């Protein structure tokens, strides 16, 4: 069981049952579990959607799309079955919040998915969990079995006459499958590559049926919203950014961990108070505010509110809530390289700019960090990334390009310090004795 942290500023909504054994269905019921779903059945589809709209809940996967609005896009009538899909393919480096939810409060995800299903009048819900989370799959498997054993899922749930099946599905280890359409391909048993959009999942999704797909944290928030009321939930956050979210503080911090803080919590405070400041007495160099795909913020740029709109205004993204703190002993070129190694490895290969772009960025950054960089490489790195941005088939290309552009733009002098065969200033032994053979 993951080590839990806490801080007085935390507002425990999603994490309210963490550490309380709520993976056990009886314990979950004691902690007001499966009440919200019964309320939702009473309220009916429209009222549930309105409540979620009122909560200003925005997608916790990274894009921050208003959840209630997403649900309202699903057509009322459909010849094909409708589906609710929980995206638990949490793979963004720096992000580890869904993992805690699945571990400590799996029933909240199930219940949230059930409420979403009621809201859009779907009778099947799938909970898709990242393949590497093998041990979480076991927890989810048991939780769903328990739900069926109690008669909460299947035919005529809670005596309402409403049929609702809940299934779990494990991924096969592709970051790309966190992209919603790729996740649907994977769930259908195909290669995990994204689909052409439009049509969007709300109209043509899983097996061609209208589909709601939400992040696990988003769905886990839903039962709480139903219980406490949308307005009350919205009041916790900032305007248009309702409620709390799980921030995953990692990197060079004294007290890293997952903290549940209100939307709009100040980043500087988050780092220095909640996270306990920079470890080993070092200085802050940069922060990646929302998972590896979000552009880096410099130490001067962190006095901002952590909600979707404010971070966007600062030139980055709130993303998936993965706050990665970088101290002044870290080489930004190496950090950029490590990030690119990840995206090169995870590019699905479908479209040319992402497949080739991540590979060439990786090649160039590798050589560059090793001391084989040429002055024109710095512009070339940026050129390549800028030509991937907004032009790839799916957002993975953007995810690789955005941070890269940020690193070059904000830390150009660190790139320049690697030039002319000079070894990495942060890693003296990392220099290579022989430059790679150039093709021309």
């Amino acid at each position, binding site marked *: 069981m993951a080590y839990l942290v806490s801080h007085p500023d935390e507002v425990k909504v999603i994490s309210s049952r963490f550490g309380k054994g709520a993976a056990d269905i009886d314990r979950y019921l004691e902690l007001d579990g499966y009440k919200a779903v019964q309320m939702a059945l009473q309220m009916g589809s429209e009222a549930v959607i309105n409540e979620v709209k009122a909560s200003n809940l925005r997608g916790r996967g990274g894009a921050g799309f208003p959840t209630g609005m997403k649900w309202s896009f699903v057509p009322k009538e459909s010849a094909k079955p409708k589906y609710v899909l929980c995206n638990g393919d949490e793979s963004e480096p720096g992000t580890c919040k869904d993992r805690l939810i699945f571990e400590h409060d799996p029933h909240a995800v199930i219940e949230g998915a059930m409420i979403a299903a009621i809201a859009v009048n779907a009778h099947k819900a799938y909970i898709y969990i990242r393949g590497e989370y093998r041990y979480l799959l076991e927890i989810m498997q048991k939780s769903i079995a328990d739900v069926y054993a109690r008669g909460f899922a299947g035919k005529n749930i809670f005596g309402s006459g409403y049929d609702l099946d809940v299934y779990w599905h494990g991924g096969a280890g592709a970051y790309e499958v966190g992209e919603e359409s790729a996740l649907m391909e994977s769930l259908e048993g195909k290669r995990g590559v994204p689909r052409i959009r439009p049509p969007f999942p709300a109209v043509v999704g899983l097996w061609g049926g209208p589909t709601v797909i939400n992040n696990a944290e988003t769905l886990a928030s839903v039962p709480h919203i139903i219980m406490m009321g949308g307005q009350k939930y919205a009041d916790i956050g900032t305007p248009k950014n309702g409620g709390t979210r799980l921030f995953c503080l990692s990197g060079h911090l004294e007290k890293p961990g997952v903290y549940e803080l209100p939307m709009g919590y100040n980043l500087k405070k988050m780092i220095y108070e909640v996270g306990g400041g920079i470890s080993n007495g070092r200085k802050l160099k940069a922060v990646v505010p929302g998972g590896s795909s979000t552009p880096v913020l410099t130490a001067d740029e962190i006095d901002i509110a952590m909600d979707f709109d404010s971070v966007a205004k600062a030139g980055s993204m709130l993303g998936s809530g993965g706050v990665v703190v970088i101290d002044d002993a870290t080489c930004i070129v190496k950090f950029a390289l490590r990030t690119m190694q990840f995206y090169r490895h995870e590019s699905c290969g479908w479209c040319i700019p992402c*497949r080739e772009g991540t590979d060439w960025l990786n090649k160039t950054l590798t050589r560059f960090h090793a001391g084989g960089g040429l002055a024109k490489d710095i512009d070339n790195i940026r050129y390549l990334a800028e030509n991937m941005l907004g032009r790839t088939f799916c957002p993975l290309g953007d995810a690789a390009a955005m941070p890269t552009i940020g690193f070059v733009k904000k830390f150009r002098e660190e790139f320049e310090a690697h030039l002319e065969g000079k070894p990495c200033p942060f890693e003296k032994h990392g220099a290579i004795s022989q430059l790679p053979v150039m093709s021309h």
Partner: protein
Amino acid sequence: MADAPKLVNITVNGKKTTAPAGTLLIEACKQIGIEVPSFCYYPGLSLQGACRMCLVEIEKMPKLQTACTTPVAEGMVVNTESEKVVQSRKAMLEIVLANHPLDCPVCDAGGECELQDMTYTYGAAESKFIDIKSHRDEQQWSPVVFFDRPRCILCYRCVRVCGEGMDVWALGVQNRGQGSVIAPNKQDHLECEECGMCIDICPVGALTSGSYRYKTRPWEMNHVGTVCTHCGDGCLTTVGVRRSDTGMEIVRCDNRDKSGINGDFLCVKGRYAFDFAANQERITQPLIKRDGKFVPATWTQAIELVADKFKQVVQKDGPQAIGVIGSNRTTNEENYLLQKFARLVLGTNNIDHHRTADFPAFAKAISENKARTASMRDVFEAPAVLLIGNDPTEQHPLLAWQIRNNVRLHRSKFYIVNSQAIKLRRQATQFVQIPTGAEARFVDFLSGNDAAAGTLTQAGASNENLSQLRDALKGEQNLVVIFGSELRGADISALVKFAAPQNAKFICLGDYANSRGAADMGLFPDLLPGYATFAGAARYQQEWGADVPALVGMDLKQMFGAARDGKLKALYVVGSNPVSRYALDPFVLQAPFVVVQDMFMTETAIAADVILPAAFAYEKSGTFTSTCGDLQMLRKAGDVVSVKSDFEIVVRIAEKMGYDVRKLVPFGKGLRADMGQSRGAQSGEADRHSVWLQARGLEPKVSPFDPLATLDEIQRLIPGYDVSQINLVSGNDEHTQLVQIQNASIPSHPELVVPSNDTLFTSGTLGRYSTVLNSVMERRATGKEVAAD
């Protein structure tokens, strides 16, 4: 018919235009002459959006959009040439080229490569990348398919054409990201129909053809568009030829310009099996048998000998002592000329050919019911198709392609009645399996005989299936009915009678490139060209200025019988192998004087006294009629020194026999006109001026060896053949209708129909001399099988 889709207004680069709602932007741009470049987009295949070359700017959309996946919408304002678009395109090419080996000088695709063309058009001449390109070794997937992995840009066209177009699904993608690679279905090799569509559709030189690779450069070839010489479907093919010591060597066949009824399509035979032309065993000089051995002779010697012998026999034993056997691989003009030769020069109706379908019965059924025949194009457009018998995947690959893609793209209905679980059942709306040989009984059932159902149910079909099918068929308007040689004689009449009231169109499947033409041209002892009986001989006699012999001649088997009985003194076999096809006794040919015109030493040729080496389809001009009745023009591409076209040989024999060749070939009747030739045409391009002259009938047919003079006569005489010659000359297909034949007394001889039952890889005629086809088969036979994952 559904209503035509609504037109929407769009503006592209300031040009206002309309396009039907739902049209993809890339297609709408094409309509007004604006090219949006793309690698992965391919009309008729599923959308990919993978190459990102077609990104364009659409007003009100913040990001560039792919024109290949965006349907037009009312009021859409598009810019395909904005600074942002041009920049993105160039960058995309730089990115594609980053890892693409620049081995263009030795790449097969050099000169006809879409990546080269786009780089030339859109720039990206300089590379920003200096790191080492990733390399992977080349692979051989089959005797005819090679894959150069680093050249692949992963547009997935091959994967889609193989799966969606061919329903073979032999290609896929392995690994992820930069490691992604196209892979064959059997780990290190392909197990497929070897159609080579993947090679043709590859925009770069990643997939190359085993029979063509590293042989030549595209610009060193002359590219001649003609009709495939193999099955009866009539695919257009572009024959790539280059000069060699012995004439013009054929190096490649593909449908380079995607023209004709087959568009993208060619099968394994059409694409690779042209090398029989250069087979070592090909006969390239006249042979005369002396003392039981073939001895080379000159053409003059051989023609003189043949003419003298024929003349002697006619004078001494009478015209009934000579028989003529024609071919289903020679052109219409040659077939027409041959029957005219038999009837006028020799004075006999003893003429026949290897029949692979009962076309006389078909002609009769069509004319009786005032029904129409379907063209190959109709098969792709029809709302519903019924197939009885045959296995088009093996025997009529283009027909199978048309049906498959009609079902896939137009959601047409498709009904199959067959004794085997043929592959096309995968596309069928309803597949009904009946016992072997029960096709005629099924037609009987269709015609209303419910009792026939009892004998049809032993192979899996139930009474309900059968009734359901019959009811469904009765409800189908504008159905296309296709049947194989399983149906003959009166059964064809019954089938046509059943479906004709629903405005159905029909196709009767014959096996060879010009099987239908041989029948249409009257290679029958009892029928004149156009299925005319001797009662209707008057118009032929008028045209020919000579009498048609009144006596019904001997059919092929009767000729062999007469030879055995000593009554047949001479036999003239043109491009046919009756000994093998009809399993006849070759020893009966010892007594008569036998002349065989062929390419190879066939089972029949061995028994000959004189063998005259003949040119084949790619080495001559003329026309072929496909099994559907689509008329198309052949053009001479290849050339082998010292062989002659069958047309020329027949004319020469007639001339030597003292016959006035002007009565045989109506040459010299064309208009005198400007004979100036445009000499500016590049090699590889059609000489447009001469095409223009030909098309207008202005090029005088001054030579007795000009088949086009005979085509004029065919068009005058044969009902249904009066189609636009201008279209034929331009390389288009013209459908000939049988319905114009008015003759209710056409005799039919179902027992003479012997289907060849070739498969995709086997053919007893030309294919057996194709080294490439044999290598494909050997590999399959030896089963170098590696288990799939």
